[in-house]
């Protein structure tokens, strides 16, 4: 959902950078091509990484996809490059590494893009990373499914309450007494009202996706809750017997 605005942003940025480069070139011939001033490190996403990967690929250090995400493959490539060129081996792409890399390799922005953009990409989407960072063990689709559940269950709640619902789903996956997969927990009959009445299939917004990623990264405002309920609408008397931990927004979270 966020891809289009990002692609647009990237396109604007690209035009900007191309202008900059074409203006800047006659005056600063020694400056590294399109690399920005930033130090690039593992985990980074963006144009700089595309350039880095293409350059490393050009001189045979990198054999993965040019996808714009600085992953482990890129990391080892950088380290091997640094070793071969007698630089301190730290896996960080700073000024020194960039200069050496620019001198050793060629980089054609447009060819790299057609590779980086997933084989040219349909619908005029060129440029920008063709991959995205995901937390270990989760796919974008898992995140999407959880975002759907969070949106259906807690879209009127404060942000913290949305992270809390995502955290409860994850706590259940971890727990012995619940199914061991995200889908198993979400689609357990009668577990979530939003699943039962189909509200889970509403299109989630960016906030619920952010909340899910925060929860996966370890934020748990509930203090390891396994259940929550809305005290105004709860039908089961049993749920009231659970030891309560905290109230966030309209929901009470309990063990």
């Amino acid at each position: 959902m966020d891809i289009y605005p990002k692609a647009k942003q990237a396109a604007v940025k690209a035009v900007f950078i191309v202008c900059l480069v074409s203006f800047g070139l006659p005056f600063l011939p020694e400056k590294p091509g399109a690399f920005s001033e930033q130090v690039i490190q593992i985990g980074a996403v963006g144009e700089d990484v595309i350039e880095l990967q293409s350059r490393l690929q050009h001189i045979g250090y990198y054999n993965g996809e040019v996808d714009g995400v600085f992953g482990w493959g890129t990391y080892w490539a950088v380290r091997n490059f640094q070793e071969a060129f007698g630089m301190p081996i730290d896996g960080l792409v700073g000024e020194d590494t960039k200069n050496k890399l620019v001198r050793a390799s060629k980089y054609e922005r447009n060819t790299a893009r057609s590779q980086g953009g997933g084989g040219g990409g349909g619908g005029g989407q060129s440029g920008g990373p063709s991959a995205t960072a995901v937390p270990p063990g989760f796919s974008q689709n898992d995140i999407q499914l959880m975002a759907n559940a969070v949106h259906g269950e807690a879209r009127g709640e404060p942000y913290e309450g949305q992270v809390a619902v995502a955290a409860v789903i994850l706590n259940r996956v971890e727990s012995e007494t619940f199914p061991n997969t995200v889908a198993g927990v979400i689609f357990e009959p009668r577990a979530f009202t939003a699943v039962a009445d189909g509200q889970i299939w509403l299109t989630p917004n960016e906030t619920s996706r952010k909340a899910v990623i925060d929860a996966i990264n370890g934020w748990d405002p509930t203090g390891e809750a396994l259940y929550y309920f809305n005290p105004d609408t709860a039908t089961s008397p049993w749920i009231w017997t659970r030891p309560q931990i905290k109230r966030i927004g309209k929901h009470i979270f309990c063990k």
Partner: protein
Amino acid sequence: MLRTVIIAALSLAAIGVGFWGYQEHKEKNAILINAENNYQRAFHELTFNVDRIHDQIGAALAMNSRESLSPALADVWRMTSQAQSEVGQLPLTLLPFNKTEEFLGNIGQFTYKTAVRDLEKEPLTDEEYNYLQKLHEQSADIQSELRKVQHMALENNLRWMDVELALATGEERTDNTIIDGFKTVEKKSEGFSESNVSMLPGNNSELDTNHLAKINAPAITEKQAVQKAKAYAQMKHVGEVKVTESGKGSDIPFYSVYVESKDGAGNVDITKKGGHILSYMNNRDVGKAKISLNEAGNKAAGFLKQQKMEGLVLHESTQYDNVGVFTFVGKKDAVFIYPDSVKVKVALDNGQILGIVANEYWRNHHDRKLAKPSLTEEEAEKRINPRVQVQEKNLAVVKNELNEEVLCYEFLGTLGKETYRILINANDGTEEQVERLRLSEPLYDRVV
């Protein structure tokens, strides 16, 4: 004339509506039967699997040869996970059934641990044998209760849709045999769980190893908590402040302080005892990324230093859109301490600290006496699959599956295009963990 036309038209319409209604009714019935059949399948499979669990535990008990014990235990483990998944497909969530699920979970946990162990070198202890025997007896109880319910359901053509309806409307009708049957099962399991806890060998419960639970400092007051939270969040123009106390369901009592300001609203969780910050979360909209991940990482490190959380080094960094998430872990004498981990979230538009999770850190952090490893690095490296190309190596303390801290040699290596983390126990050389490291995934709507 007009009258006949009207009558004819109306009766045609009536027939039409009737036909449409009949079609709708048929469709609805088809869907209901479909849903009912799914429930029935899960239910009958559940009873079958619990039956088999009981039988196989019995078989494992009767077995004499150690080599065939592992497959029998592995089979029990497989069937418990199936039974758990079937429970998950039945509309029992509103019915207290979690003790039974816990019971199945216990069987699974125990049989898994023993099945993957080399029973040739390390046979079942008497304690474990007794435990297995107990599980055998208890599963017999559960099995017979479930079979009883199943018999009645088959005899009287009971429908799970009625169970669902009864549970949904909150009408606890006394004549619902299925609900009553499951309640009986649950009561039985409740009794087991109490007697089993003390028996399970080598089970370190979470609370035993939780260092937060051991803090003996006096509790801080609400006022102190608010002060700490404000200082922590580093927000200007603080507006509304709200404090919530944790209820009695929380293992570690904490304050939750909500602070509002111009730089976004934040939430800080602080333990009552010791006043440690468990987590902080600020949800403001983040603009376009202006600083690099590297710079943001340095800010995160600076922040931790400022908070007097010393001895931490950056371990992982990831960029999600316009925020960077950094994992710091403890480091002592060139040994990484993975249980002491802290996550920090930094906005890439201005470098503001947007969040921190430190509950893992406070739970595990203590003064460790690191023993010398009895294996050398070369000896450990020999135990790695020779096809893996080792790129980086160091010593690390990790938590194993039994929730114990162990000293390991950590190797980062590549096999083909993938990168793996391999942990070799530094004392006995077992491969504690092998994990594929992955940072990214292709965007699916770009891969056409």
